């Protein structure tokens, strides 16, 4: 499994949830220690040389695995679509990059399309708005997969956002370089989330979810924010993203 740096550092539970879902479906999970980040911050800053170095490390780290599963649409997109493009003119690496791309899947896509899983009994009593993250939606056509899985969750009902394919304003380093713009866009998104009258926001990308959760917290909203994997794995007892820790978990 490719953990993704945000799940690793910010929300390990997302990676544990992904592991649990895969193990329950009968997969044997290996998490190579030789992984950090897929290189998006460098790639999106135009630093191809650094991205290539990082990508080579990722390609090497997973060369012996049958599948690489990623609990993020945007990181999966980097491995699947961006790496082959980076090495297009590199005779030595083009094939290896394509190999990795061919066996890499975003988590919900893998669960639905490769494994066709039926979830073990899991419940989440809540009205959920689903945020489709941009790279997943547009580059990997992730839309139905998480919804199909969430339908199997007992007690959960889904609401669609108005203009749901609009960006949340995260954009990686964009949110640090242009915080005012990013802040405006995410506050619009939170307005649309509020309109659904959902009590929970779900999504498949931690970047977007941290952005949305951060804004909701600032607005004083009590909406819960979870990664879709956490709900599917039944790991929603602890604090949601951006939520204060209760005394016993602290």
């Amino acid at each position, binding site marked *: 499994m490719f953990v993704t740096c945000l*799940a*690793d*550092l*910010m929300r*390990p*539970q997302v*990676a*544990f949830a992904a592991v649990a879902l895969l193990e329950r479906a009968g997969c044997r999970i290996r*998490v190579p*220690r*030789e*992984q*950090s980040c897929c*290189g998006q*911050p*460098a*790639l*999106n*800053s*135009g630093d*191809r040389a*650094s*991205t290539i*170095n*990082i990508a080579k*490390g990722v390609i090497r780290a997973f060369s012996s695995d049958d599948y690489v599963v990623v609990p993020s649409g945007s990181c999966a997109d980097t491995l699947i679509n961006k790496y082959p493009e980076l090495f297009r003119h590199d005779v030595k690496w083009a094939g290896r990059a394509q190999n990795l791309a061919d066996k890499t899947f975003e988590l919900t896509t893998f669960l639905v399309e490769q494994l066709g899983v039926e979830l073990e009994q899991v419940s989440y009593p809540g009205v959920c708005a689903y945020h489709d993250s*941009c*790279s997943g939606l*547009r*580059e990997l056509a992730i839309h139905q997969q998480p919804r199909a899985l969430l339908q199997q969750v007992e007690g959960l009902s889904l609401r669609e956002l108005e203009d749901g394919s*609009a*960006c949340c*304003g995260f*954009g*990686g380093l*964009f949110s*640090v*370089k*242009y*915080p*005012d*713009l990013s*802040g*405006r*866009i*995410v506050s*619009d998104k939170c307005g649309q989330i509020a309109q659904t009258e959902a009590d929970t926001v779900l999504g498949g990308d931690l970047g977007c979810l*941290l*952005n949305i*959760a*951060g*804004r909701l*917290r*600032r607005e004083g909203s009590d909406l819960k924010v979870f990664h879709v994997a956490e709900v599917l794995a039944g790991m929603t007892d602890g604090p949601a*993203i*951006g*939520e*204060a*820790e209760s005394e016993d978990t*602290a």
Partner: protein
Amino acid sequence: MSVSTASRRVEFQDRAKLALEDASLQRALAKARGGFVDHRQEAIDGLPEFDAIRDAARDIKNHVLANLDGYLELYEQQVIENGGQVHWARDTEEACQIIAGICKEAQAKTVTKGKSMVSEEMHLNPALEAAGMTVVETDLGEYIVQLAGETPSHIIAPAVHKTREQITDLFHEHHSPLGYTDRVTQREALVNEARSVLRERFVTADVGITGANFLVAETGANVIVTNEGNGDLTSCLPRVHIVTAGIEKIVPSLDDLAVLLRVLARSATGQEFSAYTSLYSGPRRPGDMEGPEAYHVVLLDNGRSRLLGGQYQAMLRCIRCGACLNHCPVYGSIGGHAYGWVYSGPMGSVLTPLLNGFDQSLDLPNACTLNGRCKEVCPVRIPLSDLLLKHRVEQHERRLSSGLGRLLLGTWAWLACRPRLYQGVMALPLRVMHMFGGRRGGLTWLPGASGWTGSRDFPAPARRSFMRQWQSRKVRS
């Protein structure tokens, strides 16, 4: 254009900040946003073969760009055969000189203009005014913008940044001296008042200048698409008609034109077809009831030919529909003026550095979340967000990006290539951030990212990273 890169950088961010704080602009933008998106979607839902037509449209434009020299010559021959003249302008200055020259020769006092973005690119109005002429914009949106002393903020909806209250004030101020003393506030009344004022201008104009949505090589026609009919009155009534267009506006044939028209209006306003789609092929012929005595086409290069054969060539496919602006979260937040030039939104962020110089607009390719919606909606499938990323690569390789940013990024990338070290180094900040933010759930202030925490919390990270926890789990089992 001798503005330093540093001040240019500040300019965009300052303009964006002002735009975000401008309450009437925000009202106007919020009102426009949903409408464009919904109308386009409805129009496309009604045309199942839309994607196939988009492919065809892209292929036509690619074919033209691969054979542009030949089609431009064919077009010129046709215009000459029809009795018109073609003028070639290398840059905007030369274009202004040519147009001012034609106007002077026609002893023009009043010039009417139908919407032409390329004339905005040329800064034509000030050039003609300096030559002693009165220029009247005839597109309602451009007319409003002209009264306000501003420039268009959207390539198809020039006054989209104005609220109706602001337009009421403008009309009252400028039309009262002409005898329109009632203060009109309703949409239809405003339109009627503008129509009545402009009617007078149409009939007294000596020269009419229009843009062109397309130029048809096989017939020599220029095609103009409007919803107000102002393009026709500007083209037909004055003694002299001048068409201004970029050299990339060529399509080979009327059949090709039909393909492009099918995607244009749907992408732009969500209409199947605009109210007026007019083709003009030259001056009045013997026996014609109407039409200008002289017909000129001024073709502008201004850096476009430099893009041929290069990595940005796809940008020349652009048909200026505005769909990318309408679907861009950044454009939707700040409007067009913050971009600093005639072209805004995603297409502007790609084009401006290409036409004005890379170091002139360093922010534009970066002020984008790379969400890819612009690419998704483009009727000629320009990979806009990919081209913005190419700009970033070029900025990085030419060392135009900020030194501190490069240093931080380089250090981070160096670490990211050494995962075990990376995991060790990240442990400390993680613990510290968790310590300060864990109880609350998030940090309200974060050194180095105070911008982020200005408008939202930074959710607290975990106490121990997944990789650490995973290692100990493995050891335990």
